[in-house]
């Protein structure tokens, strides 16, 4: 979802976006235990632009993106027990 618009007409603007991601990828193989990689993440992005003068614009951005992956890189040669679960972000 993205919302953008003016904070002050002709002078300052903002843009705010969110996205959520849940993706399940199943391995087409007869694996012991789990047979799918699951990626779950949330991304948020904020941008504020302020026009200082005719030639200069001040831009501030903030991005947050925590991501969790279960059975990362699972495939027919790497079953769930041999794959890591990761929890990353920034």
């Amino acid at each position, binding site marked *: *979802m*993205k*919302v*953008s*618009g*003016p904070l002050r*007409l*002709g002078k300052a*603007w*903002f*843009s705010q*976006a*969110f*996205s*959520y*991601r*849940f*993706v*399940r990828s*199943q391995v087409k193989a007869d694996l012991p235990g789990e047979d799918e990689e699951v990626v779950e*993440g949330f*991304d*948020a*992005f904020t*941008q504020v*632009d302020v026009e200082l003068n005719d*030639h200069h614009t001040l*831009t501030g*951005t903030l*991005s947050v*993106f925590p*991501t969790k992956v279960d059975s990362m890189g699972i495939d027919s040669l790497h079953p769930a027990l041999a794959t890591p679960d990761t929890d990353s972000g*920034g």
Partner: protein
Amino acid sequence: MVGHSGWAAVPLVIHVQAQTARISGAVVDPTEHLLPGVEVTLTSVEGDPPTDNAPAGSGVASTITSETGQFEFDALSAGSYIIIAELSGYARGVHPPVQALEGRSIDVRLPLAQAPLSEVVTVVASTGAGEPIETDEFQVEFLRLFQLPTDRFQEALPLLPGVIRDPRGRLSFNGTRPSQSTLLVNGANATDHVTGQFAVELPLSVIDTVEVHAIPYSAEFGRVSGAVTDVHTAAGDNHWDLDVGGVIPDPHFRGGTLMGINKATPR
């Protein structure tokens, strides 16, 4: 003795320095870089008003911008002038009328927008040996409207020239790995210093442009042997905008039984 008297004619010459007007300025691209080699034409408004399609060089004076993108018109009569700038690859730039006054100098800045691309992509289907069985043409403007087949900009990068995905699913830029390349977001380095991979995730809707510079050995970027992926985010403007997409999840079936959600990417 001969007398002589009378008026001697002494020529009196008065030099009147006519005061002239001067118009100078610079031509810049959308990123405010100065553009050399632009044909700049000055056209008087009082005479024959220029038409929108009047060719460059048909005005009262014409010049080419210098290496620093500057131009200058000297010894002008006072009056109102229109400045027209033309350069291949850019849309024609027309500066609104400026009023030149005697003894005054006017400095203007004329931005040129990128010209819209007009190439046509031709797709031909054939049997491989015989005549083409079907041909279709797409304007580039139309192709831009295609929906990206992904919700992550990294996954769409192989659509760009010089970027492929290897058999293990890793991106390859110009024949190198992502760890040999750099990701810039609004000019800031967003590469993970430990893994060398891209360190940020961005919602697709905030991305304005993605450009892959396949020539990394430039003074502008440097410190990279692969390519530079340059991402610019979209700023808000004076209009309110709400964009919602991907709200319907894909179901996950296993053995014909609904087992939950397979993919959900609301954004």
